[in-house]
């Protein structure tokens, strides 16, 4: 898995979505089911990824499960980088 992508996604999530500045999150921390990113905010996270990596993620692939951790998000991004 691309370490750069993981790091960028993790930093973005911390910067944009983490309300509790004392909370520590890792690549495996559940984001959606853990209540850090809600389903509405997921749209802005998807938009960030598409813009950053010049990819298009189909809506039916942008599921709560696929966005539930930095690791799973990175997998999804890598899949579409390869396809493009």
């Amino acid at each position, binding site marked *: 898995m691309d370490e750069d992508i993981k790091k960028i996604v993790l930093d973005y999530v911390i910067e944009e979505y983490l309300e509790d500045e004392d909370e520590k999150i890792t690549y495996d921390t559940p984001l959606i089911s853990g209540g850090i990113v809600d389903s*509405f905010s997921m749209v*802005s996270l998807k938009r960030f990824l598409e813009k950053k990596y010049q990819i298009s993620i189909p809506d039916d692939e942008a599921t709560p499960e696929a966005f539930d951790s930095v690791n799973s998000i990175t997998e999804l991004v890598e899949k579409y980088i390869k396809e493009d």
Partner: protein
Amino acid sequence: MSNIGTYDERRKNFDWSISEEELEYKPENVINIGWYCSDRICQMGKADKLALIWEGFGGREKKYSYNDIRLASNTIGDFLQKCGIKSEDRVCIFLDRIPELYLGFLGILKIGAIAQPLFSAFGDESLLVRLENAETSAIITQRKHVGKVRKIIDKLPHLKHVIIVDHDGKKPLKEREMVFSLEEAEPVENLKIYPTKAESASVLHYTSGTTGLPKGVKHVHYSLIGQYLTAKWVLDISDDDIYWCTADPGWVTGTSYGIIGPWSLGVTQCVLDAGFSADAWYRFIEKHKVTVWYSAPTAIRSLMKAGDEVVKKYDLSSLRHLVSVGEPLNAEAVVWSEKVFGRPFHDSYWQTETGAIMISNYPGMKIKPGSMGKPFPGIEATILDPETYNPISQPGRIGLIAFKPGWPSMMRTYWKNEETYKSKFVNGWYLSGDRANIDKDGYFWFIGRDDDVINTGGHLVSPFEVESALLEHEAVAESAVVSKPDEVNMEVVKAFVVLHPGHEPDDDMELNIMNFIRKRLSPLAMPQEIEYVESLPKTRSGKIMRRLLHAKEWGEEIGDTSTLEDE
């Protein structure tokens, strides 16, 4: 046999005194929701019965008996009194779905103060306008949200106390901040319950309208009479049920039926304080053997989207009654729930202003999938002609949903906005702001809003509020906000934006604007799509014609454009 028995019989012989008698309330008596939901249940011999099973993320679990919630709400009420909070002071609860939210709600009511629950995902601007309007005296919050309060506190001279329930001592407190720990506080066995009467204010919930700031809907302690009986007859909850209401108490469903309804009935309820996933929800039902489930169409459609296979991984046989609220429940969702759970979701309809369920599908009554159902016994509901405001008698004709005022849980006013409150009544009817028709069998069928308010995922968003916030973004010169269709949330927010010269209408800007609104207002209010335009359609008097933009999004006829500026 269900609690309601036969719907038609109940309608014929109905009187709200049924509820008053069951609650042993007599007119002019003291009626305090906080006491009814805890002390009274203990006095009925259920002190040791489980009142709350709370589960946080990762399976952390806490359990509270009715005696525990009695003591905890006493303790919080006592703490607030010692802070100087008096009857009718507004106390905001700005918490995730942690136990202190539920227990604090009762504690506030017990001392005669007014509970003002606010959705914890609100941004600082949304929080500010609601606290300013209510002139809130204290806010109960948690570490992760205190930053939003700090941003606005200088603009809130009435806010005397910021009470943090999970302070760990690692960082210093700031001015007006104080710590309350339920686990460390000495339990207060005896608290003098404030002698609230039927018309004493209890809860202030904020709701969005097309124009102007959010409106504070004032409810009173007598609302209990409606919430108790509707919880009993519509949700059909009984003594041995395990009940789960998935709504957040930042919204009215979460207080009327996530606190008051079940606890006034002495029922055990569950709360899951974690983000959504189909697996997590089904596991929760299986683990706690939930029997009655009150949820929302957006969640149900999300579960449908997750597929049928995931349902099969769990034993959901405990479920016996399913009810939905928040937005119209589509027929496919009713049919699907019957297929996968063996039971249909029963749609129910009501609003922040009505305080309790008004129209519903009832246990034992034939469900017409996609229909709102029929009026609750004791509720006179009709469809009014939008021109004459007279009831429409022809089945199938679309008009305005209206109710004859006088039900117990009806709002008493909009906070400091009596004029708008009065405007909701015409010809002796309360106007809901929604449109529907009634079929020949008396079933109501929802059509849509009668105004520009956006119902996204069951929550109302004011286009005016989003437009105002957009104008605070440095790049935005003009904006118009409408709804656009969405498979899961029914509607989502879309913004048409004119940029100031020198700003690029690109993807960076779109994301920047989206995040700006998300943090300032809330994720619900964040435009899911931004369309850059050169100009907005306006009337000759300069008013933005949202109607045209809305019609374009929904593929509807544009209609009369004779007042359009460029025509």
